[in-house]
C-alpha cells in the first residue's frame, strides 16, 4: 500500500459534508465512508473528526439525532441540512475550479508561458 496522503488544510469539512450527503451516518461511519471512497488513500486523524462535526453543526450545515447502529447500539447520526447542501455545492465548485487552475498551471509547458 502506498503511503497515505495527508489531508489538505480545510478540506475535511467538505469531505464530511459529502460523506453524509449520501445518507445519514454516525461519526465512525463518516470516517469509514471517506476511507472507503478514497480507497484508504487519505490519512485522517480520527479525533479531529469530532471538533469538525461540532463546528459544522454549530454553523447549521448539519444536524444530528441519536439512533441505533447496525449492532444495536446507541449512536449519534448526522445528516445534511438544506443550508449544508448549498454549502457543499459551493465548496465543491470552489474546489473544482481551484483544482482546474492548479492543474492548468502544473501542465504548463515552457513555450506556452
Amino acid at each position, binding site marked *: 500500500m502506498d503511503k497515505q496522503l495527508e489531508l489538505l488544510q480545510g478540506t475535511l469539512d467538505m469531505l464530511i459534508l459529502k460523506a453524509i450527503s449520501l445518507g445519514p451516518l*454516525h*461519526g*465512525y461511519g463518516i*470516517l469509514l465512508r471517506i476511507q472507503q471512497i478514497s480507497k484508504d488513500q487519505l490519512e485522517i*486523524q*480520527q*479525533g*479531529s473528526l*469530532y*471538533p*469538525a462535526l*461540532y*463546528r459544522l*453543526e*454549530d454553523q*447549521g450545515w448539519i444536524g444530528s439525532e441519536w439512533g441505533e*447502529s447496525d*449492532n444495536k*447500539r*446507541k*449512536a*449519534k447520526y448526522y445528516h445534511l441540512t438544506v443550508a449544508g447542501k448549498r454549502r457543499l455545492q459551493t465548496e465543491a465548485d470552489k474546489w473544482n475550479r481551484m483544482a482546474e487552475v492548479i492543474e492548468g498551471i502544473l501542465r504548463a509547458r515552457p513555450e506556452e508561458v
Partner: protein
Amino acid sequence: MRTWKRIRAWLSALLNRSHMESQMESELRFHLEARVEDLVRSGTERAGARRQAQMEFGGFERTKEECRDARGVNFVEGLLQDLRYGLRVLGKSPGFAAIAVVTLALGIGANTAIFSVVDAMLLRPLPFPEPTRLVRLWECQPNRGYFRNVVNPRNFLDWRDDTNSFEAMAALAGGMTNLVAHGQPIAVPGVRVSPEFFSILGVRPVLGRAFSAGEGVAGHDRVVVLSYELWQRQFGLDTGIVGKQVNLEGLPYTVVGVMPRGFSFPKTKAELWTPLPLARTKDWEDGRYLSVVARMKPAVTLEQSRQDMRRAAEINAKARPDFDEGWSAEVEPMLEDATKDVRRPLWVLLASVGFLLLIACANVANLLLMRGAGRMREMAVRSALGAGRGRIVRQLLIESLLLSFAGMAAGLIFAAIGLRSLLTLIPQSAPLPRGEPIAIDARVLLFTFTASLLTAALFGVVPAVRLSRTDLQNALKQGLLQGGVGGHQILRRCFVVAEVALALLLSVGAGLMLRSFARLVAVDPGFDPEHVVTMQISLAPSKYEDNLKRSQYIEHILSEVRNVPGVRAAASIHFLPLTEKTSGSCFEPAGGPSPTAQSPVSEFLIVSPGYFEAMGIPMMKGRDFEERDNFNAQPVAIVNHAFVEHYFPGQDVLGKQLQVCWTFEKPVEIVGVVADARQGELQTPPTDTIFLANSQAPMYFASLVVRAKGDPRQIALGAEDAVHRVDPEQAVSDIRTMRSVFSDSVSSPRFQAVLLLVFAGLAVALAVIGVYGVVSYTVSERTNEIGIRLAMGARARDIARLVLREALTLAILALAIGLAASLALSRVLETLLFEVRPTDPGTLGLVCGVILAVSVLAAVLPARRATGVDPMAALRYE
C-alpha cells in the same frame, strides 16, 4: 437569528452542561469501541486493538476540549470558571476585598445618591405630555436688570389676544386659602388659575372635571378642584366629594374635581385650585403679580415665540406707556425655568462625587497592582501552563468586575441611607423646585450599574494589562519582588498623585463653600431674629373686602396677641423678611410729574405700628406709625437709611412728600427713618425701602411677628388662639420662629457646603490611604537598602527623612496639579459663593496646608517601620 441560536446554545450549554458532556463522552466512546470491534473482527487481539484504536484516535481529552471550543460554548464555561476562581481568590484575601469593596461602595453610593437628585430635578422631563412645548412667560425690564418679573393681569389678557405662537396661556395667582373643614379653619396653599390651566398641562382630574371656560368669569367662579393629598387628608378619599360644597374663605365652593396623586406645578405649592376670573375691569389693571404658563403650538420654535411675545409687549408699551414703557416679555422653557437656581449647584455636586469615584478607582487600582506583585508567580504558572495573555487579562478583569459589583451592592445601601439624610437637609418651608419624588428607581439603578461597569474598567484594565505582561523567567525565579514590579511603582505613584490632586480640588471647593457659608450666616440682617415667632394669616376677601375693615381686623388681631402672657411686642408685615419675597413699586417726589414706568423704583413694605420695635430695627429719625395714621388721615411713610442715602443724601427727609404708585391718590409724607435691614434674602444688601402703614394700605395677607419675653415657641400657641378669638374661621399657617426662618433661608448654601464637606472628607481619607499604601510599599521594597544604610551607620532620622521625602514629593506634585485645576475651575463656583472669591488665598493656603500635613502624616507609620528595620534581618532576607 444566528445570535439568538448562539445565545440558546450558550444557555443550554450552561443549563444542560452535564447532559451535553455525557453525550459527547458516549459519542466518542462509541467511535472507539466500534473501531476496536472492527479491528478485532479483522483479527487483531483485543488488547492490541484497544491500544491501536486509541492511538489512531489521538488525545481523548484534547478532542473533547476542542469539541467544546467548536461548539462555541467554551467561552461561557471559561467565564464561569473565571468567576468561580475569582470568587475563591477574593475570598482568600478578605481584607483586601473588604477595603476595595468599601472604597468602591463609598464612591458608587455617593454617585447614586447625588444622581438620583440630579435625575429627579434636572434630567427627567416634566411629568406632563409633550413637556418641551410648555413655557413660562414673564415680563422683563432689561435696562433695569429685571428678568422673570411677574405679570400684570391686563398685559396677560392683551398677550393672549396679540400672540399666535401659543395654543393657550394660563395665569396663576398663589396664596394661602382658609378652608373650614370639620369646624376647624386650616390654611391650605391654594392657587387661583385661568380655567385653561389644567388642559395646558395636559393633566385630567382623577375624579370629576377641571374648570370650564365659563367658570373663569366673576360670579361663576365658586368652584374648586382639590389635590389628591388634600382629598385624602381632609375628606377621607370620599368618592362622593364631587358636587359637595366646602367652606372656602367663608363662602361655599362646589368641588368639581380631584387631581391625580402627586400632581404639582413646579415651584408652586398648591392643594386646591379655584378659577381666576380675569377681566378687563378696574380690578385687574394695576400691579404685577401673576405667574403665566403657556403651551406653544406644535410647529413653533422657542425663538419664534420669543419674537412673538416681544412684539406683543411692544404693543402694550405703546398702548399704556405710563405703565408699560421700558417693559418687555420673556419666554422660558418650563423645565429650565423651574430648575434655574438648582442647576449649577447640582452639577457641581455631581462633579464632586464623580471626582470621589475617580479617587476610589485610583485607590483600588493601586491595591490591585500591589496585590498583583504578590501574584506574579501565579500569573507566571498559569501562562506556563498555556493560558494566553487574553485569558489572564480576562481573569483579572472578572475579579475587578466582582469587586465592582460587590461595591455596587454595598454602595446602593450607602446611597439609600445617604439619600434619606440628604433629603432631611432640605427644609419643608423651602421646597425643591419640582414635586416629583426623589428615589433610587430603575433609571438610577441603570446609572449605577453603568457607573459600576465603567468603574471596573477604570480601575481594572491598567493593572490587568500590566500584570499579564509578567516576564515569565523573572517571575518564576525566587527574587520575584524585584522582577518587573518597578514599572508598577511608578504607575502607582501617578495614581496617588492624581488622587491627592483630586482630593485637593474637592477640599478647595468644600473650603470655599464653607467659608462662604460662614460669611453668610455672620451677616447682620439688620433685625434681631431671637425670641421672635412668626405666623401667616390670609384674609378672606369676602369678609374683608372693605379696606377699613381689613386694616382694623389686623389691628384687632395684633392687640389681642399683645395681651397673650409672655408677649413683649406684636406687629405685622406683608412679606416676612428672608422668605425671598420682595415687592417693588415706583414713586416720584411730590409736586413733579406723576410717576410712570420710567420713575425710580423702591421696595415697598406694608407694616403695622410697632413692627420696627418687634423686629429690633432701630428708629433713626422721626416716629413710628401710630394710631392716628388712620384711613382718613394724611397718608404717611417711613423710609430706610438706604433710601435716604440714595435719593436725599445729606438732607432731612422728614416732612418730605412722595407720590407713590402703590395705592394712594394723595402723596405720602415721610414721618420717620429706620435703619437698614435685609428683606428678600440674606445675600442681598438692604435696598431702598418705603414702608407704608397697614392702617392706610392694608393687604389681604400678613405675617405676624411676635416678640416673646422668653422662649418664642411657648407663646406660639397662645398667639394662634388669640387670632382664632378674633375670627374663629381665620386659619393660621407657617408658625415658625424667626430663628428657623433665618436658618431655612440659608438651607441651600448649607446643603451645598455640608455635602461638599462630606465628599471632600471622604476624598482626603481615600487619598491618605493611597499615600500610605504607596509609601509602605516603597519601604518594604527597600528594606534591603535600608538595612544596608543602617548597617553603614545611617541614623534613624536619616531613614525617616528618606521615607517622608517620598510622601512630600508626591504631595507637592499633587498640590501643584490640584491648585492649577482648582484655579482653572474657579469660575464654576463663582456664582455659588457669597463674598468669597473662588481664588481666595486664605482658603487655598489652608487647604494646601491640610493636604500636605495629612499626606506626610500618612507616611509617618511606614517611616517608623523603616527606622525599625533590623539590618541583619534585612540583609539575610535577600
